[in-house]
């Protein structure tokens, strides 16, 4: 089966499992309507970025956190927050792709490869401005989105500063917690509006980040590699944090200019840590489920969310 079609089906099934097809259709329609009404100068870039496949996992997190606290229908403020989180998530993807020098994302050219860096950066600013405009009547959301942008900026700098260093699992938790963790923390707060699920969101983000790390190594290992870009840049992923406890692997990981043979050895040692990484992810998933049980009125949507996230490492 075509990989893209398979991924689409998985994404749609996650939405269906959580029962938010209607709300997600509304999010898609609003984004499409905004892209359609945007300035003609910017529209092709926005179409390229937004009208491609997306997991919509962050809006899904907002809806699930809201449902876990309030069984009623999803209100307008929450729906609006879901649209804006998708905007901000896309901004983070565009910037990440530029910084990581990535040519492709989800099987097609990245925005800066297709339209150039200037257009990609300007599109990012355009999207952020639209996001804040949509939040003009929701002061709580403005505060949360501001927190998110600041924390993502700090996390990106921290991750780059700490590359190729002999660090540990606790350092990985700190980086992942500020990077993906902050995104999902904010999603949880936007959904429940009481801060009660903030810690759950942080754990879900940590789980998502770890599953992504493991999925990259697993996917690349199947092709004979091991999460090439992260290995090349010396990024502290979960398998890396486990593998570099071995002093030999640690020395290779910290080399300023590793040669292809070194990179292969590092990738292989990361792949060897996959079972330990999966066990660690199971522990984080359990922590998240416990948080959901303790601090929500109905933990079922949150448990389903954890289950969907956990599956990402086995993709």
């Amino acid at each position, binding site marked *: 089966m075509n990989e893209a079609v398979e991924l689409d089906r998985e994404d749609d099934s996650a939405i269906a499992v959580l029962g938010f097809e209607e709300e997600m259709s509304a999010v898609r329609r609003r984004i499409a309507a905004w892209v359609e009404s945007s300035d003609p100068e910017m529209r092709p870039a926005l179409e390229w970025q937004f009208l491609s496949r997306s997991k919509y996992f962050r809006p899904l997190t907002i809806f699930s956190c809201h449902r876990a606290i309030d069984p009623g229908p999803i209100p307008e403020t929450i729906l609006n927050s879901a649209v804006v989180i998708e905007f901000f998530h896309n901004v983070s993807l565009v910037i990440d792709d530029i910084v990581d020098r990535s040519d492709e994302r989800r099987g097609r050219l990245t925005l800066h490869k297709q339209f150039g860096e200037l257009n990609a950066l300007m599109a990012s600013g355009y999207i952020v401005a639209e996001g804040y405009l949509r939040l003009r009547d929701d002061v709580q959301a403005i505060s949360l989105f501001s927190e998110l942008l600041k924390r993502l900026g700090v996390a990106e700098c921290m991750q780059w500063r700490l590359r190729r260093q002999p660090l540990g699992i606790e350092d990985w938790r700190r980086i992942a917690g500020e990077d993906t963790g902050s995104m999902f923390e904010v999603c949880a707060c936007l959904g429940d509006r009481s801060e009660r699920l903030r810690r759950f969101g942080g754990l879900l983000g940590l789980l998502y980040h770890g599953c992504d790390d493991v999925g990259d190594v697993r996917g690349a290992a199947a092709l004979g590699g091991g999460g090439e870009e992260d290995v090349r840049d010396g990024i502290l992923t979960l398998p890396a944090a486990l593998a570099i*406890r071995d002093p030999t692997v640690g020395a290779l990981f910290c080399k300023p200019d590793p040669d292809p043979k070194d990179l292969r050895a590092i990738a292989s040692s990361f792949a060897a840590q996959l079972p330990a990484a999966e066990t660690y992810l199971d522990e984080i998933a359990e922590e998240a489920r416990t948080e959901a049980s303790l601090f929500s009125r109905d933990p079922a949507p949150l448990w389903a969310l954890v289950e969907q996230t956990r599956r990402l490492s086995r993709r």
Partner: protein
Amino acid sequence: MTNPSDWPGAPGEAQSDVLASWFGDWADAWRIREGPDALETREFAASVRDVVFSVPAQASWIGLTAWLRYSSAVAEALVRYEAGLARLAPDHAHEGLGASPSNTRVLVDETRTLLRRVGDAASQEARRAQYELEKVGEAIAWAAAAGERGSFPHNQHARRHEVKA
């Protein structure tokens, strides 16, 4: 767990006297105002009083169970820490771990994990206790609101001021 009906009754006598006197005055004032509904209001005041009397016991119980769970979590974290160290250096579980830089790094990482777990447990139990106390507070508010609805049914509610045309 926080259902008021599941909890033990009145705790300290001195406190009971103060609350009984306060609720007695409240019930008297209500009786004078309401006249024919006096019995109903007395019952309502008594039911709210029962709920309020149980609050110190509930709060103490919530605090105690939070402390017990926290202690248990700390003990579990310590056991896992010891097991982790033993797994990392079977022959030097307690000495010699700092012999090489890589061993020191692992020791530091494991120790940070221990401290995070202890901190997480403290934070989780504090938030859990706060959440449970909030639920007790909500139960009291609901009990009071239910009594007020009984005394002032919606169909008897009348505006007490003139509205300008």
